[in-house]
């Protein structure tokens, strides 16, 4: 029934009521249902992230020192760049919703495309940030091998990476976008030759979107090169050993005093357990920074997955805009995807100060 409906919808899209599903009485009812549905879905998304926010808060409450030492590894300029990119994309999609309400499909297509490019650029910058940290051994708690003082300049071993002057990790992360870029360009050319202009436009738009990734990745890479591992990186090398040693002393003092609060029910023992028996307290202290990065990777990773999902949803909107589906009485999907995109943006607005701007 509805399958048939989707099959028809490209051909005859000028009759009133065509986009009303059979079980709704009026377009208003359909729009309201969709709107309520997406809002409720956003509530579940917020709650989905809330588990990580709670974990972040608890750890920060019990171990503020970890956060103070760890955040210097994050480059706040790259973070700020990404924040601006996302804020700008929110603006463009909001404008796109307005255009859809006015039935201006061409504007919706352009604005959605800009939004997608911004999203891909965000991912590109994130790829630079991740690969840079992985090179330094800044990983999750169990794999955290970073030691301050060593020179951690990006080490390239794969021939391709060496010739490009980038790290292995960045190369690996860029494999999929490269394939996608080539695929979209090819598809665009082929469909253009077959005179399917709608598909050709769509694939060209997607290729431009993936171009956004490379814009972010290349830009971020040159920024890292120019600043010698990023502003944050320099800070990290300069500052990180001092507070750690200081803190290790404090820990030793606490140990001398015995575990006075043993037996208490409060969760203050969270990390008081001796961990790997083999490593020294100093090393353990260093590795505890890995907890911060565990949370960092969980939060930003989950957020990045949402960005990628958002690109897929935007691509759908982009396609339908090219096909000219939006009308003043039917623009719901643009609105819903727009709301989703604002939420993804909003979550980043929280993540950025929580992770990058700790003092």
């Amino acid at each position, binding site marked *: 029934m509805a399958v048939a409906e989707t099959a028809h919808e490209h051909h005859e899209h000028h009759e009133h009521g065509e986009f009303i599903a059979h079980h709704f009485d009026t377009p208003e009812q359909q729009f309201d249902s969709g709107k309520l*549905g997406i809002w409720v879905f956003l*509530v579940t998304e917020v709650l989905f992230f809330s588990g990580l926010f709670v*974990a972040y808060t608890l750890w920060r409450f019990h171990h503020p020192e970890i956060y103070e030492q760890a955040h210097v590894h994050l480059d706040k300029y790259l973070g700020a760049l990404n924040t601006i990119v996302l804020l700008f994309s929110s603006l463009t999609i909001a404008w796109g919703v307005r255009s859809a309400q006015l039935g201006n499909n061409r504007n919706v297509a352009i604005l959605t495309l800009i939004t997608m490019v911004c999203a891909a650029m965000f991912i590109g910058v994130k790829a630079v940030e991740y690969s840079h940290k992985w090179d330094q051994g800044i990983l999750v708690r*169990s794999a955290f091998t970073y030691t301050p003082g060593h020179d951690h300049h990006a080490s390239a071993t794969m021939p391709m990476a060496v010739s490009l002057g980038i790290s292995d990790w960045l190369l690996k992360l860029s494999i999929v976008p490269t394939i996608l870029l080539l695929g979209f360009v090819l598809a665009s050319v082929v469909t253009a030759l077959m005179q399917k202009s709608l598909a050709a436009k769509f694939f060209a738009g997607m290729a431009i979107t993936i171009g956004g990734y490379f814009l972010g990745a290349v830009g971020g890479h040159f920024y890292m090169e120019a600043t010698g591992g990023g502003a944050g990186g320099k800070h990290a090398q300069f500052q990180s050993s001092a507070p750690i040693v200081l803190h290790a002393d404090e820990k030793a003092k606490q140990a001398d005093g015995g575990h006075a609060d043993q037996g208490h029910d409060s969760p203050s023992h969270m*990390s008081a357990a001796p961990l790997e028996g083999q490593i020294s307290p100093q090393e353990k202290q260093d590795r505890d920074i890995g907890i911060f990065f565990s949370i960092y990777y969980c939060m930003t990773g989950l957020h990045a997955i949402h960005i990628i999902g958002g690109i897929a949803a935007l691509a759908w909107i982009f396609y339908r805009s090219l096909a000219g589906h939006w009308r003043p009485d039917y623009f719901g999907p643009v609105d819903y995807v727009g709301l989703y995109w604002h939420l993804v943006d909003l979550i980043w607005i929280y993540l950025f100060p929580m992770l990058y701007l700790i003092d």
Partner: protein
Amino acid sequence: MATAEVRKELFGHAEQTNYLTHSRGFWSWALTLDHKRIGIMYLIGVCAALIIAGVFALWLRTHLFFANGAMAGEQWGILQVNNARYNQLFTLHGAIMVFSFIIPSVPAALGNFVLPMMLGAKDVAFPRLNLASFYLWIIGTGLLCAALASTGLDTGWTFYTPYSIRTTTSVLFATFGAFVLGFSSIFTGINFLVTVNTMRPKGMGWFDMPLFLWALYSTAIIQILATPVLGITLLMLIAERLMGIGIFDPKLGGDPVLFQHFFWFYSHPAVYIMILPAMGVISELISVYSHKKIFGYTFIAFSSVAIALLGFIVWGHHMFTSGQSQVMSLIFSAITFSVAIPSAVKVFNWLATLYKGSILLLTPMCYALSFIFLFGIGGLTGLFLGALSTDIHLHDTYFVVAHFHYVMVGGTLTALLGGLFHWWPKMFGRMYNDFLGRIGCFLVFMGFNLTFFPQFIMGSRGMPRRYATYDPEFEVFHQWSTVGAFVLGIGIVLSFVVLVYAALYGRKVSGNPFGAASLEWQSSSPPSFHNFDHKPIMHDPYDFDALVYDETLDSFVLREFTDPKQVPERHPVSH
């Protein structure tokens, strides 16, 4: 004359044109967007899950027949149970029962079929999301079964860390399965919430809705607000196991009690996902079979919402012995008692509905009465566990096992069976053998009590749960329990046989054989593809005086319809 025909269309047995015969073939079911077909598919699915998990239950109960393990010997062959196997049995029994059976049972199976029809609507708000929810259920259950088929699962259904991080069994399959099932549940919740909000017909205000809808609405709120937290918790557990993120793993500085908080933040409200829709079913049954307006409608409606909201702030009562702070235990205990009130209010209102009613003891009503009995015990034994000092003694003993089975099985399973017997004629247009139905109900009731009542005594005497072997002192109780489990199993199988036989060969019935007043009964049995061929007439869902019995149709019909001038307009969609 025309009136009689219309009446037959409205309230008769639909011979040819109904949702079952609308289209044929595998894909007409597998890709259907019709809420009724999705409901039926869900029903088949959850019953399969019930049978799989039920077999595990019988298997482990047989093992527990003797203190040293009745099935420990070589002669049992592939059925032989050692400690490791026992742990897998109770884990998979619990995981499949909770995630694949109880949570989707009443809302997704019965609710899918009934909810849009109670609203006089053609479908739920998002039919595709509804189908997606069903396929997520299939994938999630498949993953749980994949865990079973690979190395099994031995963490208990609660996946407590750090054991779930270290064990060599397939925790990843199982947690990912539970994660996917969580999204299935969320999608159902979103769908129902939006449907009730935006698709109520003109003239049906919030307080004109049947109570089953209130219950489903409250359930949807819990599904939406609690399930995402389970999702992220399971993702973090997966990350912990795969990468060692150190949030829950004490070896890496993490806190296992934090996992328990996260887990119960979902899993306690999940208890209400299981029981609230069941209570909604019972409200309908009691009222219909007493042929009397439900007593205290507003109180029952608000008690559902109260339970849903209070259910979010009592999770800590699972953790009185976990090492959480004493003040927190105190607060959680206090709030826990406050949940007891709305539950009690419902029971009292059901009783008051019976008072001066006109009670017909058909199979659904027998289930409803046994629900009151069993839920009464389940609820009252909650008092022992809500009180702090007695909980310290009873926590993690068979007392707890008995308590939650009285609520989950004695409550939800009983209500599911009652609801199935109530709506079965509507679903398939055929009547079951009521005598055999009641025998089945009796066996379920007796078997259930025999299984779980002795467990209360064992528990207060100090028998810990999840033990493969135990002290001989408890043997006699375990033996009663095992015998009861088999009686219960026979009762459930008999009920299913009665229902399936009825669906295939039962006597054809009219649109409203039981004299129920809610809107879904203003359609033919089985309903047509679009549910209603004529716009249903809006009226109080518990106003039984509006109905009169029509002998020619063998059906209850609305009084208005006996007046030829009141022929309802035809529904616009029935071309």
